[in-house]
């Protein structure tokens, strides 16, 4: 089955009125639903609940559906091998169904195999929204899945609301970061046909996932896999550890992290002095690592370590979303930056606007004085 780009619109015109369909495609980590995927499940449930208040697709004008057609309409789709444990975890949640594509062709992730399962399934069932966690894996294949199915693509959303500028008739409005989080965009999706949404980590709390009501567990059913379609488009040769991870920042109680604002490897000394005074580990955002100012094992963020110390001091870090996802779980966050509009201040508990080359030595002195 192939989907052309016009299929979505034709299907919408001919489609009888029906409840909204929301799918979620969790990503697994060592056979279990990953934390960001639970966040995607929570987002899908919230989305279904919000859609329950809006007229069904193709319906004329805003005519709220009965409240019974709400979160129960989320269906999960699992891909891989050995999925029984993950399917069971999902079956304990408030979902309409869990579709399981378990096949040897899906033993290792490749975009070709994943799209080869999901594209025919989307063409056949025409879900209104398919929700994914925003991960390095989903950015690899979801845009191409949108291209293949003619779906709309809405990456990295941090929230949505049903009361946008154009009201509920136009549907939902979504927020997503632009310019690395310096600005927040409000967007909507026009036209008919499925929309593929990926949700940014930390935006929809995983503990918001609704459990299945007693006695109504979702049905777990196999999703057919056509090996002729689910074909790997890259030959996996192996996986390698990038660094030996000799520094485990995840165990640190206090971290002083430095960003591009420090200006050079030769200017990191005062930051190290502060770390010593606090008994802290040194961390860094990606630009510092890419510039070779600190080793990669010190990198914090989506491509480095995810940390949650009791105190996190960010010096000269603007706060690109890729960094924030790796540290915003810290108990207390202090941001030092010369730009008062830097996104780091939106997650910080304490903020100092100023030149880190002045503030950091002053802070070291104040810490030493306080510790006597």
């Amino acid at each position, binding site marked *: 089955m192939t989907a052309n780009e016009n299929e979505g619109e034709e299907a919408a015109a001919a489609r009888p009125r029906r409840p909204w369909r929301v799918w979620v495609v969790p990503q697994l980590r060592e056979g279990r639903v990953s934390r960001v995927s639970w966040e995607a499940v929570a987002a899908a449930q919230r989305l279904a609940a919000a859609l329950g208040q809006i007229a069904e697709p193709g319906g004329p004008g805003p005519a709220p559906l009965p409240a019974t057609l709400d979160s129960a309409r989320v269906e999960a789709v699992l891909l891989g091998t050995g999925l029984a444990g993950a399917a069971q975890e999902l079956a304990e949640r408030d979902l309409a169904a869990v579709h399981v594509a378990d096949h040897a062709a899906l033993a290792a992730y490749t*975009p070709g195999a994943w799209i080869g399962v999901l594209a025919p399934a989307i063409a056949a069932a025409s879900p209104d929204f398919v929700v994914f966690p925003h991960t*390095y894996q989903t950015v*690899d294949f*979801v*845009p*191409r899945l*949108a*291209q293949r199915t003619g779906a*709309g*693509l809405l*990456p*990295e959303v941090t929230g949505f609301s049903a009361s946008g500028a154009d009201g509920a008739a136009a549907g939902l*409005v979504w927020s997503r*970061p*632009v*310019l*690395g989080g*310096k*600005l*927040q*965009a409000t*967007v*909507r*999706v*026009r036209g008919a046909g499925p929309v593929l949404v990926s949700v940014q980590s930390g935006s929809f709390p995983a503990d918001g996932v609704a459990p299945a009501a007693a006695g109504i567990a979702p049905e777990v059913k196999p999703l057919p896999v056509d090996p002729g379609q689910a074909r790997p*488009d*890259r*030959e*996996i*040769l*192996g*996986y*390698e*550890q*990038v660094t030996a*991870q000799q520094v485990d920042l995840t165990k640190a109680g206090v971290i002083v992290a430095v960003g591009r604002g420090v200006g050079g490897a030769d200017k990191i000394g005062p930051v190290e002095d502060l770390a010593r005074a606090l008994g802290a580990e040194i961390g860094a955002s*990606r630009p510092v*690592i890419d510039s070779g100012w600190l080793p990669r094992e010190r990198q914090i963020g*989506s*491509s480095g370590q995810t940390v949650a110390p009791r*105190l996190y001091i960010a010096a000269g870090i*603007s706060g690109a979303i890729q960094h924030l996802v790796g540290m915003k779980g810290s*108990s*207390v966050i*202090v941001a030092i930056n010369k730009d*008062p*509009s830097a996104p780091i*201040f*939106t997650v*910080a*508990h*304490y*903020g*100092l606007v100023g030149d880190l080359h002045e*503030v950091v030595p*002053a*802070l070291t*002195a*104040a810490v030493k004085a*306080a510790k006597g």
Partner: protein
Amino acid sequence: MLIAVCIKQVPNAEARLRLSRDGKGLDEEDLPFIVNESDEYALEEGLRLAERSGGEVVAFSLGPERVREALRKALALGAARAVHLADPAFAGGDALATGRALAAALAREPFDLVLTGSQSDDAGFGATGSVIAGHLGWPHVWLVMGVELEPPSGAPVSAKVTREMESGINEVSRVRLPAVLEIQAGINHPRYASLKGIMQAKKKEIAVPSPADLGLDPAQLGVAGSRLEVLSVAFPAAGKGAQMIEGDAKTAAESLVAKLRQEARVL
């Protein structure tokens, strides 16, 4: 070996940013634009692969007149020629519309490899390269941290590609050529343009095809061809939740330490 590199011109996020009057984007007056960071790495990787295998690089970009500056930079760094999708019909599209236009332009020549950056520093979809690959029917890899052509010179038939995954793990895979590789920042050390390169760039060709030249209907392109519509942009509430500590460096530092000890109790 013929290599295409797609680059995007983006606002310099370090500059003072002001919103446009319609609130849907940035005020471009006096706004400095630069080549997107990961695209600079993609260009450098393309130049290195071309030098090693004996080939040439063609730079592509989509956007208004100002984008010529980014293409001139690519030419100064060593690209042989450039293609500029400058028609207003191309502009303002989402990743699907932009990918459709670039794929049509790329399909006019027998490229062995198309490189893009992994993600733009403004819209940040991370999607254009894989959308291009979908249109061309080629394999793609996103977030590439290493490329080895096989065989390394002459006419390579495949590439061994290292892809960054989460948590410090890399995937190593082999893709057949032609392919689209979306390059991650940090893969190499981009070169600087030489004076000679800058002088030579002035004589190099920048082709400016129209939608009709590419066989594309303007309704499929740009704003008209996009399902994603930006309603507004806004600065996040500054210091939302953050307690801002005032004063000169010494006063602020002492005040912060006192708060960390007595209020937050983390020292």
